[in-house]
């Protein structure tokens, strides 16, 4: 039985994530009107009516952030999900079949790992346009190599285990063995890595928006920061709060992911996530 104190990081992480999900779900109820409509006095510092202040065009920062939670979570789960699927499948195939397939795929993982991701994403989004789903897909498609590498290593050690061999002997096809016996047993470290990738996806969304590459019709945390950069001196609340929101969500991913990693690798102990 583990003591509750040892579980603090995990509980804190889950609580933060639950809060964020709740805000995302409740956003339409809390702020029914379009958050990008200006219906408040501009540049209001935080007060009772507008707890996080208003921006230069009279938009409620709290409303924009609440709606922005949806965008950030979409990036987190969408992009990390795409990366999880691509990485797991390609890594598993590479590790299981070995030989030429492995050589080619491993090379590919390496090369994709070297390419500076944000530069590529910027280029793609600038050329194709800043559509929300396109951006989610691109972020996901640039993240998979690390998942693939982890999955490959897992499959390499797991495929010689008894249960995998038993499945092969009993006549199961290679893909059945791989995806219903080997992969489910080796997915743990990939999931831990996925938590970190979710954090990275949220950061990337914010970074892209900050560079002016976010869909202008959608309120996102990075977007508010982008609008706020001209008002660092006159409306600091436009910058402080979205940043805190990002840090909170990232913190939850890191706390959960760190705990996962620690459980999977008992040698590594301590607080470092």
């Amino acid at each position: 039985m583990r003591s509750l104190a040892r579980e603090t990081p995990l509980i804190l992480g889950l609580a933060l994530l639950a809060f964020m999900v709740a805000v995302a779900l409740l956003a339409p109820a809390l702020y029914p009107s379009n958050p990008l409509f200006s219906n408040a006095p501009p540049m209001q510092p935080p007060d009772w009516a507008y707890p996080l202040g208003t921006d230069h065009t009279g938009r409620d920062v709290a409303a924009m952030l609440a709606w922005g939670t949806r965008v950030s979570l979409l990036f987190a789960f969408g992009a990390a999900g795409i990366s999880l699927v691509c990485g797991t499948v390609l890594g598993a195939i590479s590790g299981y079949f070995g030989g030429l397939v492995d050589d080619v795929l491993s090379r590919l993982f390496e090369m994709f790992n070297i390419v500076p991701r944000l530069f590529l994403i910027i280029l793609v989004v600038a050329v194709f346009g800043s559509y929300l789903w396109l951006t989610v897909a691109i972020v996901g498609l640039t993240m998979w190599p690390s998942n693939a590498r982890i999955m490959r290593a897992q499959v390499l050690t797991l495929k010689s285990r008894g249960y995998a061999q038993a499945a092969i002997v009993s006549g199961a096809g290679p893909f059945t063995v791989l995806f219903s016996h080997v992969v489910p047993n080796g997915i743990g470290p990939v999931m831990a890595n996925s938590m970190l990738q979710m954090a990275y996806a949220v950061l990337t969304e914010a970074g892209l928006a900050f560079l002016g590459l976010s869909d202008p019709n959608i309120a996102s945390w990075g977007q508010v920061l982008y609008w706020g950069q001209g008002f660092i001196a006159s409306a600091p609340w436009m910058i402080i709060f979205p940043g805190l929101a990002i840090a909170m969500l990232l913190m939850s991913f890191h706390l959960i992911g760190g705990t996962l990693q620690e459980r999977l690798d008992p040698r590594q102990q301590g607080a470092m996530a």
Partner: protein
Amino acid sequence: MLRYLARRILQIFPVVLLAVMMNFLLINLAPGDPAVVMAGEHAPVEYIAELRKSYGLDAPVLERLGTYLVKLMHGDLGYSFAYRRPVLELLLERAQATMLLVLISQFFSILLGTWLGAYAARHHNRIADKLISYGTILLYCMPIFWIGMMLIMIFAVKLQWLPSSGMTSFMSFGRPRWIDIAIHMILPATCLFLHTLPIYAKLARASVLEVAREDFITTARAIGFSERVVYMRHALRNALLPTVTVAGLSLSALLTGALLVETVFAWPGLGRLMFEAVSARDYPVLMGGFLFATLLVIIGNFIVDVIYTYLDPRVIYS
């Protein structure tokens, strides 16, 4: 050794080719006219027509790819109409400012991060360790450009100690140029430093903890060295190899960080150039910048590999 280096240099080409292919793919998949994508949205009509001819944009795909590769190999990355200069020239000029920023911030980041991590490991599971651990996670969770804006808010707006943007002042007040640059660099360099500090701290902590279980550490303790000497001299030295590896591997993350930091502080480097190119839809600069950044990362990796062979005599290269 020489053969290893030669092989390593040969390995550079596939990655460069991958980046080039991505560019080529983008030009051809982009909605609208590929010639416009290659020229950028500021280009005059005559130039676009000329481009179409010189790159043979009406020719079959493979022929176009060939022409594109030949042009690239001659160092022709296109022409930026937003700046009215060749892209390569622009990139080389801006890369200097980025290098300055990156090298200085990384020097301090590796030094301090490693020290912090080793210190945390030495006080494993005690208050100092917890503080350093949670502090580094917290830093890790803040977007780098947000840290930058907070630094501006505090040190440029509130305290008015430091300039918030640019590399030099319009009026130098009789200061030598390098002092002027140094003053302008404090905030962006601090920002980039804070961004990478957690990576090195976390790494050093983990590797020192790993090494701390080994026999030679027990021996060093048994000889009677103080804990400080055991950790800082014996354990840390052996834990440094992963730091070198990570310094190489995180180069692409570092350039990403530099891109955002330069945007916040209007530091005239590659990143700021990319930002300006985004707003001007200056595609040749964006594509050239992507290629250039890829090349920088590869070269950096290569240098790290070479350093590694000197640091770890156990590594045998065949």
